């Protein structure tokens, strides 16, 4: 549409630039702090222009927090969560859409309703389950008398135990269930025409072959969109790893490491707060997901809007 609106155009740019300044300011200040020396960062008027200590501070923060192995851990866990979520979403939705059996709707709702139970609100009992992931089955067997029966017959005391604390499984497994992913895949599978299923069956393809050779190639855009969102989600996990991992030397995640960097009385022992290092570490930690969002912008937006979360 051709309209001449020079005043409004100017105002638009002013408003947008003002908004950008608000959005960029905190991170810019953090960046500037990360480029300064301990003395400079603690001198009263805040600096707005970077100094030359960035690399020194990055190196020191990196060594102090032992970021090397922690980045590998985080990358491993995030990849695990992404792969797990997409696989689970895909196979569950496939079973729900392409197989005919009773209770389909019930199972769909059972998964979908978990949306209402975010990890944060059920954190204490979920932690208790993670300490022994087989508790539910043990309890059920005890209550139903199966344990008693087994003991009476074979003399074996049933004591199931699977401790997930301080393990990759414990970090990944509770996070891979995905109501939104399943929903997204279900919506997509519902758009697959019946003729395609019939043709595949006529050609002698079983369900797994149909899934692998036809549906998965068709759902590549879905996968890219979901993967972007889920990677950011997994990388930024904080509360769960904070609780599950006490052995941070071996299983620590980078984001959790930030909790040790808060420069208060505890970490500095009443000394000068090491803001330059804390900010350098903050920058390092937030860089990978930001890079993903910027590089995969198209998929990211699509994923965000399609999953509604």
């Amino acid at each position, binding site marked *: *549409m051709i*309209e001449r609106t020079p005043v409004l*155009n100017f105002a*638009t740019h002013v*408003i*947008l630039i003002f908004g*950008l300044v*608000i959005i960029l*300011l905190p991170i810019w*200040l953090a960046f500037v702090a990360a480029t300064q020396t301990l003395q400079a960062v*603690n*001198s*009263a*008027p*805040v600096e707005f222009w970077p100094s030359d200590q960035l690399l020194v501070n990055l190196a020191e923060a990196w060594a102090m927090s032992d970021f090397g192995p922690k980045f590998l851990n985080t990358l491993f866990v995030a990849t695990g969560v992404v792969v797990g979520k997409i696989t*689970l979403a895909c*196979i569950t939705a496939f*079973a729900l859409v392409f*197989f*005919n059996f009773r209770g389909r709707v019930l199972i769909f709702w059972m*998964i979908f309703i*978990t949306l209402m*139970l*975010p990890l*944060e*609100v*059920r*954190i*204490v*009992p*979920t932690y*208790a*389950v993670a300490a022994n*992931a087989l*508790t*539910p089955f043990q309890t059920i067997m005890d209550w139903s008398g199966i344990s008693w029966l087994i003991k009476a017959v074979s003399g074996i005391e049933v004591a199931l135990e699977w401790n997930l604390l301080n393990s990759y499984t414990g970090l990944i497994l509770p996070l891979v*269930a995905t109501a939104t992913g399943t929903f997204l895949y279900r919506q997509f599978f*519902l758009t697959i025409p019946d003729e395609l299923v019939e043709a595949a069956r006529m050609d002698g393809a079983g*369900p797994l072959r149909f899934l692998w050779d036809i549906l998965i190639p068709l759902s590549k855009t879905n996968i890219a969109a979901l993967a972007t969102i889920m990677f950011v989600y997994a*990388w*930024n996990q*904080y*509360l769960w790893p904070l*609780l599950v991992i006490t052995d941070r030397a071996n299983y620590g995640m980078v*984001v*959790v490491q*930030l909790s040790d960097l*808060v420069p208060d009385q505890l970490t500095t022992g009443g000394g000068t*707060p090491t*803001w330059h290092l804390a*900010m350098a570490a*903050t920058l390092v*930690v*937030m860089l990978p*997901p*930001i890079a993903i*969002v*910027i590089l995969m912008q198209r998929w990211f937006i699509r994923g*965000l*809007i399609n999953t509604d979360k």
Partner: protein
Amino acid sequence: MRRAYFKFSWIAAALLAPQLLIVFVFFYWPSAQALYWAFTLEQPWGGGNTWVGFDNFRKVLSDAYYWSSVRVSVIYALATTVLAMSMALTLAIFVDRQLAGYKAYRVAIIWPYAVAAPAVGLAFQFVFNPGAGLFSYINTIAPGWWDLSKYPWQAVTAIVIAGAWKQVAYSFVFFLAALQSIPRSLTEAAAMDGARPLRRMMDLQLPLLTPTFFFLLVINITDSFTDSFGIVDTLTGGGPFRATDLMVYKIYADGFRGFDYSGAAAQSIILMLLVMALTFVQFRYIERRVHYT
């Protein structure tokens, strides 16, 4: 509904099993456990839990600290939502004009979505820090006027601003998508009728955004109840004097630091009901949104 099916077989069961098992172990069991803890009390010398009815809830609801936590959570929820959404809406409407630099603006507004909550908290702790941050200017004029660790209202302001900052990107993406789905013919018709851009914003775009607006309103409030943990933990640690002890943070503190499982469970149940109520409302609006567009 679909006519062409595969016959149900062990394959379908095997495909469904993993997700169902995980959901059972990590969602339904803990939720049931929370219910169980909420209505029982662990005996101090062992001997399992005894049924205490609504005692735990009564205790929680008569605790002044709990109510101040509810109050600050509501303040936080409303303030972050209003701030983030108004900012996102303004930016989205102007970015949608697609002037030069449109793509750069868009990416510059979106990326904060990727910043982890504790990183936001830590960065803002520096920004709001009385000695070296933004307000150190004021403190050089009036020493001690700004100090997050002393004045509750300043700590609440800080977490609200940090929380809102983090939420802007999410709402922005949705507002922008909604704006771009407004049919071009509508805009053109309005332009032909002589509506200038500002008039079209007020009379065409804003009304068409209502469904998105309600949807985001609920999502933002729900998120602020559940996602605030990281920000509070690194920015204020719940202090000073428990002024920023949001509900999620209090559950964590009571459960893991105070080892009061029953009290934490009762609070979890209340929060769950709240989230469920909000999600229920959200579904109604999602439905409306689908009809609308």
